[in-house]
């Protein structure tokens, strides 16, 4: 049984090759008769108005921000979870403190309306 990343690399390359072959085969098989209407941007048949840069709401950024906070938490908590059975009571109390502090962050974001999707 392998335990290294070599297979992951091989898997990445193999998947890329197989899918690339599928794409190329499709490109060879399919007809190619482009015209201006086909190549225009699809908007249910309407003419495109304005450029693609519609105004985005900062809400997306704020949600990504909260996500980043929990991602950070995860990367630190996973090694601790692996070592969980050999932790002292004191250590576990500190981990719980860590999680509770992050819960406070979440509650703050909630209070500030960062989690509301209006």
């Amino acid at each position, binding site marked *: 049984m392998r335990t290294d*990343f070599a297979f992951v690399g091989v898997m990445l390359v193999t998947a890329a090759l197989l899918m690339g072959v599928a794409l190329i085969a499709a490109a060879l098989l399919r007809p190619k008769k482009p015209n201006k209407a086909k190549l225009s941007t699809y908007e249910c048949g309407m003419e495109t108005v304005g450029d693609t840069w519609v105004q985005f709401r900062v809400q997306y950024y*704020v949600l990504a921000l909260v996500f980043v906070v929990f991602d950070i938490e995860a990367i*630190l908590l996973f090694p601790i979870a692996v070592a969980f059975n050999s932790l002292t009571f004191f250590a576990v109390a500190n981990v719980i403190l860590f999680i509770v*502090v992050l819960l406070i962050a979440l509650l703050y974001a909630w209070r500030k309306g960062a989690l509301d999707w209006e």
Partner: protein
Amino acid sequence: MTVQQVLFIVISLVVLGAALFVVTTRNLFRAALMMMLAFFGIAGLFVLLEIGLFAVAQVLIYIGAISILVIFAVMLTRGMQGMVPRNSQAIGAAVTAAIIFAVLLLILGPLRVTIDLARWPVISLFAGNASPREVGGIAWTPADRAIPPVPETYIADFGRALVDLNQYLLPFLLIAFLVDVVLAGAIFIARQRRPAEVIEERRLRAEEDAEEAEAMRRASASPALPEGAVASAVDH
């Protein structure tokens, strides 16, 4: 050449090429994508270092989180797409970076400058029998000791060290508070203010400005100054 050497060279070239693309392109979205490629390549370097935990953490944090933030920010500041990529100090920056790279290469790499006052500085390839360099009392090139393997339990060891009072417990807890502050601050800065709040803010600012102007007027109108000075100040 071993396979790992070939892989290392290929991955390094990809990382450095992607990084160069990031700092030179005009298209910010592509820059962000190339930054992801560079991060992915760095994860590959960590795999070559046999630290799977950080290879995966690199992908999770840098590609899955930080790059997403960057792309969202690129989209939110959309008016800035066609900007000239370089500012006025670009040449100076390039020279600085090149000089620092040369110095780092001389310190870290196999190249050595032997300073001989009688001749020009001679760059010679670092030979195996030259004096070993030391970091923290451990000779690291050329080593006279084999590299120990990574322990099987390094993830658990790392986890234990994070919550060990004698090791990294304090920074670990500080991270929780740091992240709290980051979240609070970033939400406060980036939050979309409601129209009512914006109006209130403008009113406060206008009041402040008025107060300031009033204070200035009062200061300039103080009797210590002659009339002419006030008039000229008003003229300006």
